Each structure stands twice: as C-alpha cells, then as structure tokens.
C-alpha cells in the first residue's frame, strides 16, 4: 500500500551539495520544499567526532561513511561485446550515501574549470581542425560559458570560505596564483593554506623549472571563517584525515558546515532520511513529472506529489533513475541516438612515487589536508599546444599528498619484496622520506561513443530494479595524454632531489578495483540540442520541463580538475534561472 503525502511545491531527490543548494535557494524563493535522502542524517559530533574520526581502518579501509554495495551497486564491463559483472565491493570510485553526500567525505579540492573547457569542441576544432579529434570522441560544448558561471563559482567559494591565491583578478594576472584560470571577480575568501615541507619543495622545484606553481584551492580552511549565511567554520589543523573521513573540526566545507544549519531551521523545508526514491512519476503524457515514489527503511512506500522535481543524487544514480522512470530517450551507442546514459566519463589520473635520502629529507607526510599542495596548470586543458603531441586534454599536477596514513601510504621502492624482513626495513627506512601524491596527475577524460551507462539485463537491486551498467574503457587519447603528463610530473620530483622516481602510468583496460577518484561524470549531459543532450543549459530536462537534473551527470566530458566547484556553480546557476524565470512562468527555459 502506498501512502500519498500532501503535495509540496518542490521535491528534491538526494540531499548532498546540490540538493542542499537547491533547497536553500528555492526555500528562499518562498517555495515549500521536501528533500528525500537515501542515507542517514550525519553530523560532526555524532558521526566523526575528533576523538575517534582519525581511524584509517574504519573509514578508509572499511568504508563506513559510504554507500554499501549490498544496498545497491553497478555492473561494469570494458567493452560493449563483453558481459558485465556487478561491482561487489568498491574500488575505482566510492559512491556517497547520506545527508551531505560526497560533501561529507571529499577532499574539498575546490577548482574552477577553464573558460575553454565549456566550449571544448568548438575551441579545439577552431585551433586544431576537426580532423585532430579522434572520430569516436563525442565531446560537446556545454551551452553555458565560464563568464556566465563566474558569479556562481564565486557564491560557492564564499559559501565555503575557500582558501586560495587568486591567479586572475578581473583579467589582471596575479603573482602566486594560477595564471591560467579564468578571471575571477574577487579574491578567494580566505588565504591559501600553509604548505608542509614536501608540498613547498615541489613548488620551489617547479618554479625553478620555469613553471608557475600555486597552492591548490582548498575547502579546508586556513583560518576561521563566517560565511554569508552566518555559519561559522574553524581553521584546519592539518590532521591528514579528509578524503574518506568526516571532519571533526568544522574546518572542511560540507553541506553540514555551510548550509544545513540554516536550511533545516526554515519553516518551509523538511527532509526525510533513510528513504530511497524508487521512481520519478509522470502523468499520462510522460511530459510532466507529478512527484516521486519512495520507500523508507521499514519498507513502507510513499508517494510525494510535487510541482517541481529536482534530481540531485550522485551522477550515476541520476542516470539510473531517469532510465527507470522512462524519462528521456535511452542512449543507444550502435545508432548513436538517444541521450540518457551518453557521454559517461571518469578521470585519467596517475601517480609518481619518489624516494629521497632519509638522512636529508624528513617530510612528515601525516601533516596534510585534503586539498593541500602546490600545483601547476601548464599541462591542463588547452593551456599548451597539443599540435605536436597528437592528443587533446590534460590536467593539473601537483604534490597534493593528503596524508601519511600508513595502511595505505607506506611507499617502498620498486623491486622491494611485498613481505618479510626486507619489506619491513624498506617501510621503516622510507616512510618519512618518500612521497606518494595519490592523484598527482589529475587528467581529463573526454567522452566517447562506446563509454556509457544503461540498465543491466541480469543484476538487480533490493527493489528488483535493474542495476545501472557501466561500459567504460580508456581510449588511446587519454593513455597518451597521461604518459606525457606523468613524464612531466616525474621531472619535477627529480628536480626536488629524489634518488628514485617510480612512474605509475594510467593504462588500459579501465580497472574497477583501482581507486581513481570518485569523479564520475556525464550520462545526463547538458547542451544546446535535445538530440545530443538530456538537459538544457539550465539543467532542465528537455523532455519533462518540471524536472531539473543537478550534478556532474550534466558534464558533457570531464575536465582536468576536481568537479565539485563546477557542480556547485551549475547548481547556483540553475537555481537562479528557476527563481528568476521558471517560477513565474513554468515551462521550457530554452526553446528549440
């Protein structure tokens, strides 16, 4: 039996970063909003208090804050002619769960994409000619530009108190910042974090090699901060427990530390936790959403009618829910038609481990934050001439090592046995004097015709719904990009004085057991043409105009940066369009 709840103006599916932002904006506009969250409520004092948050086994190895695969997972295969098998335990990426979503356990690396990233196909075609791109590469322009998003990047950074050094203030290049970034309208709200030894040494060596190193923009704050909503955050203590962990200090920007204390006190907002939306309901025409159906933790089913539906779950769950709700045409890679599931991407990352003379270098790798480090952007996006190299794309690179937690971070030189006395000696000898940035090379992954999401024919979730199926492999363009970047990256560690440098290139096939960020993107992409995009430039569904789809599922391809800054900027941009135009005149915001 389904209990029908009183209608609301807005129902929000998923209360992570984008759900919280939309809830805040739409309640400000006076709408009555409910958010439905699959996972639990979480807060600092209860779930990651500083007297037990720093627990590598519990949170990093056993994944306590994440979705459990038993609850739901995906299937995976490399190629269209292979069978897909379920991801039974997480590896390549870590889907979030619970209020705050990935904002609870992210590293808080808060980047903006390059202006050229938003007009990628036209930019690259103009510079190199259309034949320069691989034939099966399906990159697109976004339909929204950097200049349009700039005020919204700014809003997110000031909400979070982001710590950084501006590189481009209103077109004026600033010393010490990223000279390649798009113009920003004002400085970061707080100065950059302090840099520990290895991170500073990387910056010095990079500068000596002629690069322009700058501190990674950080949502772990360099100083106490009060945001525009009057929510207060504390300074980061460099404890080295960010990604995979909740912050016990109120120092890491998350919905909990920036928005929820205001949002939850509003009379026109409520949230339900431990409730999973099973479908978006549409009327008989299929062109209008009537609300959602969800099931609570006790198995009770509810219908929540609403005039406006915001789909703000994690990337691939957005795609799955659209497919299960039969909204939009499923993508078919054979005919290259349809939109839901197309242009799915991840990130092309690699690492370099380096080993220094222990009598001269003590790095104390445990002193870090999740978005620490000096970076260079010379090899990101189209910041360099790709003509001689025969590939497109790139990424930032940096000594961005976030921790020295020893189960995961005890580097030993290549060739060392994996156990026994020699292993033990190597761990002891190298722990303080070896570097392992983690995702040191943070490269783009562009989109391809045969990399996509659909519904699995075999495996099902606990509601007997088909799991989402990922078909993904690395293409030659990304492999060559990574080899080029990894070699450049390694040169900097040599210049720092490393005795031994171990380059760990990214190679095909894509391996679902090897962690390579949680930056899954695409599948419900934005664009200017309903035949090749699921949503318009305001993230509004082309097919069901009272449905807006948030998050990285909107990205037509992934850039060489962490996605959250852009995800949040798009959410504010979309919210502004809903507030200023849609509420007064519900209907399509873009006419074709």
């Amino acid at each position: 039996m389904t209990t029908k709840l009183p209608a609301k103006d807005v129902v929000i599916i998923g209360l992570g970063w984008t759900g919280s932002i939309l809830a805040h904006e739409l309640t400000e506009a006076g709408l009555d909003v409910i958010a439905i969250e699959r996972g639990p409520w979480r807060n600092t004092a209860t779930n990651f208090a500083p007297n037990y948050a720093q627990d590598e086994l519990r949170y990093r190895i056993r994944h306590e804050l994440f979705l459990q695969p038993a609850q739901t997972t995906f299937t995976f295969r490399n190629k269209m002619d292979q069978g897909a098998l379920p991801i039974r335990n997480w590896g390549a990426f870590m889907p979030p769960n619970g209020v705050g979503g990935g904002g609870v356990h992210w590293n808080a690396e808060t980047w903006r994409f390059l202006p050229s990233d938003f007009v990628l196909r036209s930019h690259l075609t103009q510079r190199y000619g259309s034949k320069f791109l691989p034939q099966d590469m399906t990159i697109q322009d976004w339909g929204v530009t950097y200049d349009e998003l700039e005020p919204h990047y700014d809003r997110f950074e000031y909400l979070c108190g982001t710590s950084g050094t501006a590189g481009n203030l209103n077109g004026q290049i600033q010393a010490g910042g990223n000279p390649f970034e798009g113009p920003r309208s004002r400085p970061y709200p707080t100065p950059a974090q302090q840099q520990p030894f290895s991170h500073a040494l990387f910056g010095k060596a990079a500068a000596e090699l002629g690069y322009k190193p700058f501190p990674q923009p950080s949502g772990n704050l360099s100083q106490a901060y009060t945001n525009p909503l009057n929510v207060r955050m504390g300074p980061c203590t460099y404890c080295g427990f960010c990604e995979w962990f909740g912050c016990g200090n109120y120092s890491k920007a998350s919905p909990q530390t920036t928005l929820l204390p205001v949002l939850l006190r509003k009379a026109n907002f409520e949230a339900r936790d431990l409730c999973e939306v099973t479908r978006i309901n549409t009327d008989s025409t299929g062109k209008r959403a009537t609300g959602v159906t969800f099931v609570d933790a006790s198995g009770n089913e509810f219908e929540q009618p609403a005039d406006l539906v915001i789909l703000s779950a994690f990337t691939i769950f957005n795609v799955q829910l659209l497919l299960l709700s039969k909204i939009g045409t499923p993508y078919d890679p054979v005919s290259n038609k349809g939109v839901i599931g197309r242009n799915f991407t991840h990130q092309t990352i690699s690492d370099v481990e380096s080993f220094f003379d222990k009598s001269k270098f003590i790095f104390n790798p445990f002193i870090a934050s999740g978005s620490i480090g000096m970076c260079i952007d010379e090899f990101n996006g189209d910041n360099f001439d790709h003509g001689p190299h025969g590939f497109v794309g790139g990424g930032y690179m940096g000594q961005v090592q976030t921790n020295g937690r020893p189960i995961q971070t005890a580097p030993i030189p290549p060739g060392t046995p994996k156990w026994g006395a020699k292993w033990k000696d190597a761990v002891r000898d190298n722990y303080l004097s070896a570097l392992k940035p983690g995702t040191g090379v943070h490269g783009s992954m562009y989109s391809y015709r045969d990399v996509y999401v659909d519904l699995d024919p075999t495996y099902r979730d606990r509601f007997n719904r088909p799991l989402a199926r990922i078909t993904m492999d690395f293409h030659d363009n990304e492999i060559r990009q990574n080899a080029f970047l990894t070699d450049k990256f390694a040169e900097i560690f040599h210049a720092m004085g490393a005795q031994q440098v171990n380059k760990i290139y990214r190679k095909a096939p894509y391996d679902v057991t090897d962690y390579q960020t949680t930056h899954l993107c695409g599948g419900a992409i934005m664009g200017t043409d309903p035949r090749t995009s699921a949503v318009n430039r305001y993230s509004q569904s082309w097919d069901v105009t009272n449905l807006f789809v948030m998050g990285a599922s909107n990205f037509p391809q992934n850039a060489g940066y962490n996605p959250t800054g852009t995800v949040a900027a798009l959410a504010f941009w979309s919210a502004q369009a809903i507030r200023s135009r849609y509420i007064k005149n519900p209907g399509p915001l873009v006419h074709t």
Partner: protein
Amino acid sequence: MPPPSRRDVLLGTAFVLIGDAAAKAGVLRGQLPWHPNAGSPPQAVTQAGWLFFTADEAAAVEALADRIIPPDPTTPGGKDAGCAVYIDRQLIGSFGTSSGLYSSPPFVTGSPQHGPQTAVPPAVVYRKSLAALDRYCRAHGGNPFAQMPSDQQDQLLSGLEAGSVELEGSNGKSFFGMLLKNVQEGFFADPIYGGNKDMCGWKMIGYPGAHYDYRDWVGRHNERYPHPPVSIAGRPEWTPKAT
C-alpha cells in the same frame, strides 16, 4: 570492525531489517537533529582469547604473521604486534561475513578488472585455507605450519605468493593476498582493533597516529615531529594500572 552502534546498524543495514521496529526513517525539520551524548565511537578489542580461530588456526596465523612481518631487535613481529588477534576480530565482524557487499547471484568469473566475484566471504576463506594449508604442511614434512623452520615457512609463503604452491580446495594465491593485506592492516591500524600493540607499527615508522592538530608543525620544514604516537584510546601510560 567494532560492533556497530545501534544507529549504525540502522543506517548501514536498514534495508535488511525491513519490518524491524528499530529501523525507522526520520523526518528532519525545524532544527538540526541532535541527541544528548550521541556518538558512535569504535569498540576496542579488550576480551582475551580467540573468538573466531581455533587454537590450531590461531597458532598458524600467528606464525604466518611473524613471517610476513618478522620480529627484529627494535620492533616486534606480526605475532607479538597482535596481527592475528586483529584478524580474529575482523573475521567475526562485517568484514568476515562480507555483510555490506553485493551478494546477488549469478557469480561469474570475470577479468581481473571486474573485481572479485566470489560468493565465499573471508571468514570461510580463512577457515578453508588454514585447513588446506595444514594438510599441505603435514603432507610435506609432517609438521603443522607453526612448527616448521622459518626458512621452510618462507619458502612455502613464496610459493603461495607466486601460485606455485597449490592448496587443495582453496586458492592459495588469493588467500595469501588477503592474509598479507590483513596482517599489514593489523600492524598499522589503531591498536584498539587488536594489532599494532603499544603502537609498535607507528613507532617503527615515526607516525604519530591519532593526533588531530599539527598547526604547530606544518611550517617546521624538515624537522622530525617530536611527540610519541597516540591511539584513539590514548596512550598506555595515560591509563591507571589496575591494582
């Protein structure tokens, strides 16, 4: 893992408890949800004895741990560090039963990049593999693993690692991979989980453990951090000795 708190049981496995009156979704409105003294601290291993292993299994795992991490003059080996105790407690928890993992059939062998596709949880892997290892050792020399000379133990482990030693009814290579990972976890995880006794793993490498504030040291480049490690449970000297 420690036995989860009530709230965690609700959160992580709520769907298993459908119909259970304890598993309730909540409505959040009006204020931040808050309960006095709420928290979900981990539960430390305090009880003595083996909870999963038999005495013979425990002897074998301690001997295995001591070859994976041999004792040396300054740092204990895997046995005295408590790595077998750590594994014993992990195997009675959610790790041992794979309770959080996706377990719907069909189980089909795929490529390495598909990830593990086994229906057999770690607790069963350990039980079967330790029995198979024991049979192997008795058939090749007559003694159980724990009583073999260390050079023979190393030879056997190298064979398992390389896949050249095959165990009957168990994949010796993948068991060795799991064992290796678990022993090293036990050596470096917080001592509350039964291994890393007296923070010996952390002292060996100079890791300060559960310190939460390095603001005084972030700007002190290339200087050794001066303070001894601390566990989530503090330091032994902080705890009054029982009289």
